[in-house]
């Protein structure tokens, strides 16, 4: 399982990085989303992979911590999901407004010079 999940993280991250470096705003938004999936799974995987042991306790009694998934990375990722949602929304709106103001969806706010920069 570990090897599949690390490969998945790698593919998501590579696609995300490639898109973040692209010149159009929509590409960058999609890239940020993919990158945030990659990073969220990465952080989550730092608590190791456990199957069928969610961190839900019995009421009372002694708790054997090894019986449960590590809750800390989960709590961190929960926060990260929310924040990446907020940044995606913000960037999307900046993208819309920038398009309205500059008339282009290029990340620099102006179309590149056709002769030298043919992106």
């Amino acid at each position, binding site marked *: *399982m*570990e090897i*599949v*999940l*690390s490969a*998945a*993280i*790698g*593919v*998501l991250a*590579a*696609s995300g*990085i*490639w*898109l973040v*470096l692209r010149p159009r*705003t*929509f590409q960058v938004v*999609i*890239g940020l*989303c993919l990158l945030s*999936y990659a990073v969220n*799974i990465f952080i*989550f*995987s730092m*608590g190791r*992979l*456990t199957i069928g042991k*969610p*961190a*839900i306790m019995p009421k009372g009694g002694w*708790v054997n*911590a090894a019986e449960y998934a*590590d*809750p*800390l990375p*989960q*709590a961190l990722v*929960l*926060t990260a*999901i*929310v924040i990446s*949602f*907020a940044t995606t*929304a*913000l960037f*999307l*709106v900046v993208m*819309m*407004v920038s*398009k*309205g103001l500059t*008339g282009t*969806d290029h*990340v*620099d706010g102006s179309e590149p010079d056709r002769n*030298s*920069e*043919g*992106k």
Partner: protein
Amino acid sequence: MIEQNLILILVLLPFIGALAAATLPVNAHGAAAWVSGLSLAGGLVILVTLYPQISEDEVVRSLVRWLPILSINLNFRMDGFAWMFTFIVLSIGLLVVVYARFYLSKTDPVPRFYSFLMAFTGAMVGMLLSGNILMLVVFWELTSIMSFLLIGYWHQAQAARDGARMSLIVTAGGGVALTVGMLVLGQIVGGYDIDLVLRSGAVIREHPLYPVVLVLVLIGAFTKSAQFPFHFWLPGAMAAPTPVSAYLHSATMVKMGVFLLIRFQPALGGTDLWFWLVCGIGMLTFTMGAVIALFRHDIKGLLAYSTISHLGLITALAGMGSEAAIIAAIFHICNHAAFKASLFMTAGIIDHETGTRDLRKLSGLRKALPVTFILATIASAAMAGVPLLNGFLSKEMFLTETMATHGGGLLNRALPWIAAFGSVFSVAYALRFVMEVFFGPEAQDLPSKHVHEPIHWMRLPVELLVILCVAVGIMPWLADPILNIAGRAVLGPEMHDAHVALWHGFNMPLMISLFALAAGAALWVTFSARINAGPEGPPLLYRIRAQKIYEWLLLRLTWVWPRGLHRLFGTERLQPQLRLVIVLGIIAAAVAVWGGLKASETRLTNDLNPAFAVMWLIGGACAIGAAWQAKYHRFAAMVLLGGAGLITCVTFAWFSAPDLAVTQLVVEIVTTVLLLLGLRWLPKRREEIVGDDLLPAKIRRGRDLIIAVIGGAGLAGLAYVVMTRPLIPNIGDWFLRNAYYEGGGTNTVNVILVDFRAFDTFGEITVLAIVGLTVYALLRRFRPGSESIGAPEQQQGYAADQLGDFMLIPSVIMRWMFPVTLVVAAYFFFRGHDLPGGGFSAGVTVAIGLLLQYLASNVRWIEARITILPIRWMGLGLLIAAATGIGAWLFGYPFLTAHARYLDLPLIGKVPMATAMAFDLGVFLAVVGATVLLLIAIAHQSLRAARLRELEEEKAVEKAQKQKEAV
């Protein structure tokens, strides 16, 4: 105890006066002056009450505990020296307030003036009474800021703005050096208490860092006291109103530097380095200031350089450091304050009555201004050191000290000669001031025609100061008690009693004084005509002006060089910046894990489930497909992104993270809708135009692909190595064991979020609220591009009134789903503490429910039926979360301490009731508000576009009509 409070009141009184003055109406001349004057007079009364204790060499202290853990307290102490200085500050302040009341014109906004002046006084008193060297630095910088504001009082004038900025940069810059110096000093002696520092002189002088501390402290003192080479800001500061110049830039603030030197002389002084630096720079400034003053044509310029010269004299005395020299320095501080403040006020009267300050234009005013003439002459004579006036006494003491031996060899032998040379020029410029202004033929071309004496109140402060000059000059024993109290405070109780005497017999100092008087007079008589014809400054030297150098440097440092660097290394384009960030990130990660990244010996693995592998095969394909299609096929890319997101969600569920799975799912839905709404406003991309097949574009893509693959592979490798390593016991175990006992919930992840780490969550919902507001604000002014205004393809061909039924069946289904969604949200919310769910997922679920309505039906139809006030929801949520946190204070616990218990409710049974529940409610409300605000703001854009469309149609119709009429 009473004294303690008196000291505190003494420091606070001017600040209270400042606040009171600031709230007065703009034209309240009298009231503002009264408020300021009374607060200063109150301070003087306190000083007088404290005199009995001070005269017995008691140190009055006041301690307000502030941050005892860091041993930072508001710590004030008043000894004789501080008492004397505070007395000067308050009494001259009072005189200046009286003077300013009649000096400022009717149109000046006076409350601002008095409130700055009072705040300055407060800062100054605070500096003088600080019992802690860091507090001293804070008040020190505060005076720089107040001085900046006061110099720039007439901010309409360029000169005022430049002068203010220059003084701020120089003095505040010196303050920074002083801060560092004081920090190092505190490290050396092991504390920041002034008494401790003053006791540790031997330790400090032995320490290897002594030269560093000394130089830093001296930079602070020299910038403030306008010593060479930092003197140039003081003439620039003369753009301030004259009362300010009289107060700050002659009598009080510029004396802070010498105050510091004298105060710390026992701790830092007594070495050769101290003597050479302090005495050397002091003597240099003394002569240079005197020489330049003679050549200035502006009265205030002359007085400014004269002030620089006298400050140099005091600095030189502090540098000599002997008992008599320190007494002389203290005495000269008082004398200079008296005669220089009166001279500045006289200059202000002359300016006020004649309209000019140019010595070449002024002439023969002794008939028009007879009283002012007498006052100015006496004050100038005191400045020049004429016998029977106070200036003579302290100058005599200074000359005596230059004869004495202080070490330092060459400099020590040169002292009397330098002193004599400077004194000659002091006499010459004082003479020039009096002769040019009051003697000679009556001036004809003055800006103001009818020159007459000012109102008596304006002259009164000058009269009082001049009387003081004469009284001390004739009866020097009057000064003895104060000098002895102040001297003992600095030098210690074993100091010999000082006696100021008028007559010491025909000795060398008297000879030098008489020589200086004669030579100075001769100098002026010989060269007066040539000085008047010459430039504003000494011959040759006037070309080298420190101010020019400063301006050249300022321009280079703040404009030319930064721009150059920016041109060299900067780019405004986003892509190279992001590329740099990512490459640096990869390098940083590589450096951090290099060498330490080995697979562990005991592998921790789960057996591979083929279904999982197939699932991620699809997920990976989705990710790559999204990356590939995002440019030309946005919709396809979005669908693929959603696919990758769903598989991520399933992965969370697979590996025992139900909370994450739920949250990821709802967020995924909202993100998709958001992107769908935004997609509408992007321009069409046409493949045939863009030169994507050209070689440079291919190279660029190839390079980015390599970066992406390296980054992805690196992250994958890192993840694999860590994942296969056994887990070391960590803080997660503590959370697991204590979630139920401490947090009262069984869902550990939720308990961490709303209880153990609730502060993080509080920050997080605040961020969400800020994003919501930002989006709302950004979109209020949004104008869609012209190509996006037209009706979407699917809506074309329908009449506007038919659009309501556009998606009839989906909209009916979604309307029916709305209550169901709300129930699901409530379910998520209430089980949150014990089972997967919680405020966040519940909030987003409600938002989805509302959103579906917007999606399926006409926006106007929806808004006619439900009123949603997202900003209020958001605000209420934040308030509830904050109130829950603050509630803990009531029970004496830190912010956001939670309390949990189970309640037995009839019918329902045991119900967990934790304050964390209320916090979760806050999270829920804030999330609903922020998410709905975001989505509605974007959704409303289509309404706006429709309105624009209608407007354009109307315009087209009008145009057509006009054309018809024209035909």
